[in-house]
């Protein structure tokens, strides 16, 4: 029997899918209007399957911020690390436009230009809107995106809608000012620094108002929330419900990143981040009828390339100054490539729907779910050497099908050498990151990691190189079932899964 692919089966044809927290927007592409579908289809953040093909970039033009978050420290910029809010090179709008066009010409899969900081884009309205204004004129085939804390959002909506911006991301961590005061020590509002609950209340009001104004104008809104155990973890399902009711399109619950060496409040005070399990559980709890984004990479404000990769080094300002760009011809080339990718995505999707339909009434396995880790560099196929993977995509296989769960970084926000770790080898760290997975699928793997993985109870598998991820995951799951490896765990474990 063949298992349906849960994430990417349009809801209309996927029996039983609605009871599951199907990964992301693709489930809903089936019943979206053509207009919205066109907006998300080649957006790597809004569409789970698009993120295997299409790339995004951020330009760091917005240094100032109008609030303080306990997970951010504006002082810190270690070249080894990569986390939101951190950049190495601040750009003027003019440089940003140049960089965007250079990247678009050299990475034709790049479809989306976002401004995400390193401060708050809307706290830097001149720099942000100048960049958008020029780009919508000079590079009309690039989608524009902005990410904001929401404080200055209501006053910016009018201007945003003028620039034909399809998507806005608002970071909303709470709707309760008491909880907000534990996340935001202060905001700058009407020429004053306002601390505590009072500040948080204003921020929350502005965020909610901004959200309503955007959805009323038909601009798609994604809500990002940072999961902070003991602070807002119990509260985020409520947040999800409220933002969904107000028309947000996608919810992205991200884990808190807190290390003492980042110098953030949470880092220094020893606040822990969520475990992989806690994060997945909360994402499931939030999902209900809300689209959950599970493939966010918490990119830097100057990231370039496919999600999960960063090609920023190829596009530093000195390199860009030396490039000759003929954007007209680049645009024609981009169009051809985008169409080819879209066609490939469509035919893959259609094939999956067909497969799912033809096997819908076959008897179901009665085996427990299994988590598998995939080494891939994109295109939705297993195409990466184990040792080269800086992150793994985690899929769950079960009798209900295959679903994308999350990605896990192996280098834990650092370069992966031993200079700032505790002497643990890269390989040991990688194995630790794969905890809970029973199989790892990659294009190739060496003897040493093979042994170590096996000792850690994770089965390496290089037999499915270049195969589509979901097909390979299914095939391996069925092999495991046929070999009797899944039978020993009974139905009660399945019920809780």
């Amino acid at each position, binding site marked *: 029997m063949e298992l349906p692919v849960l994430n990417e089966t349009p809801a209309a044809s996927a029996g039983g899918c609605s009871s599951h927290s199907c990964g992301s927007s693709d489930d809903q592409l089936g019943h979206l209007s053509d207009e919205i579908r066109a907006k998300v289809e080649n957006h790597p953040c809004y569409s789970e399957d698009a993120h295997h093909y299409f790339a995004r970039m951020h330009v760091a033009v917005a*240094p*100032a911020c109008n609030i303080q978050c306990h997970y951010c*420290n504006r002082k810190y910029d270690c070249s080894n690390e990569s986390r939101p809010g951190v950049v190495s090179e601040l750009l003027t709008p003019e440089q940003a436009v140049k960089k965007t066009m250079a990247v678009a010409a050299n990475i034709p899969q790049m479809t989306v230009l976002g401004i995400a900081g390193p401060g708050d884009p809307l706290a830097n309205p001149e720099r942000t809107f100048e960049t958008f204004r020029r780009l919508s004129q000079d590079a009309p085939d690039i989608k524009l995106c902005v990410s904001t804390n929401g404080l200055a959002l209501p006053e910016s909506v009018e201007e945003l809608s003028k620039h034909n911006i399809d998507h806005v991301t608002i970071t909303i961590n709470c709707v309760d000012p008491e909880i907000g005061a534990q996340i935001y020590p202060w905001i700058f509002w009407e020429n004053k620094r306002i601390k505590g609950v009072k500040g948080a209340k204003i921020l929350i009001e502005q965020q909610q108002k901004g959200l309503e104004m955007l959805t009323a104008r038909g601009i798609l809104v994604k809500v990002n929330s940072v999961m902070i155990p003991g602070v807002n973890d119990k509260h985020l399902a409520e947040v999800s419900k409220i933002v969904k009711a107000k028309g947000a399109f996608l919810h992205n619950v991200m884990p808190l990143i807190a290390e003492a060496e980042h110098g953030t409040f949470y880092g220094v005070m020893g606040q822990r981040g969520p475990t992989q399990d806690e994060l997945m559980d909360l994402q499931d709890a939030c999902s209900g009828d809300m689209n959950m984004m599970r493939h966010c990479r918490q990119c830097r404000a100057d990231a370039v390339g496919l999600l999960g990769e960063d090609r920023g080094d190829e596009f530093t300002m000195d390199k860009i100054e030396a490039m000759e760009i003929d954007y007209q011809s680049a645009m024609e080339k981009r169009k051809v490539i985008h169409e080819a990718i879209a066609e490939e995505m469509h035919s893959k999707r259609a094939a999956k729907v067909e497969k799912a339909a033809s096997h819908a009434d076959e008897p179901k396995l009665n085996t427990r779910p299994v988590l598998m880790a995939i080494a891939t560099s994109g295109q939705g196929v297993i195409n990466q050497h184990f040792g080269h993977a800086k992150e793994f995509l985690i899929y769950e296989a079960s009798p209900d099908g295959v679903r994308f769960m999350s990605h896990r970084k192996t280098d834990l926000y650092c370069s992966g050498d031993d200079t700032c770790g505790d002497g643990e080898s890269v390989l040991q760290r990688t194995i630790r990151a794969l905890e809970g997975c029973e199989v790892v699928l990659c294009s190739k793997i060496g003897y040493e990691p093979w042994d170590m993985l096996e000792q850690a109870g994770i089965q390496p598998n290089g037999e499915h190189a270049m195969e589509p991820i979901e097909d390979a995951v299914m095939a391996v799951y069925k092999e495991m079932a046929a070999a009797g490896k899944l039978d020993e765990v009974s139905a009660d474990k399945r019920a809780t899964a």
Partner: protein
Amino acid sequence: MALQIIESCVNCYACEPLCPSKAIFMSSKAGHFRINPNKCTECEGDYQDTQCASICPIEGAILDANGIAVNPPGSLTGIPPERMAEVMAELQAH
């Protein structure tokens, strides 16, 4: 009477556009933002609170006319200074 920005400024640009007296400038010599003491009015007549000091996220980066930090350690981040010292010592020991 004037405020002063010192070298712990991280060049976040937040203060510069807010100054009603256009006293804040990027000093390429110093490598960070500075305040022209002849222009700074401490926002008298324009705002109740000094604007630069009210948005600056960096504790200790802005000093008042007496050379005292307007935002002393712990006042913006909420991290008690003792705790910060403890953690920094611990990190250094590694």
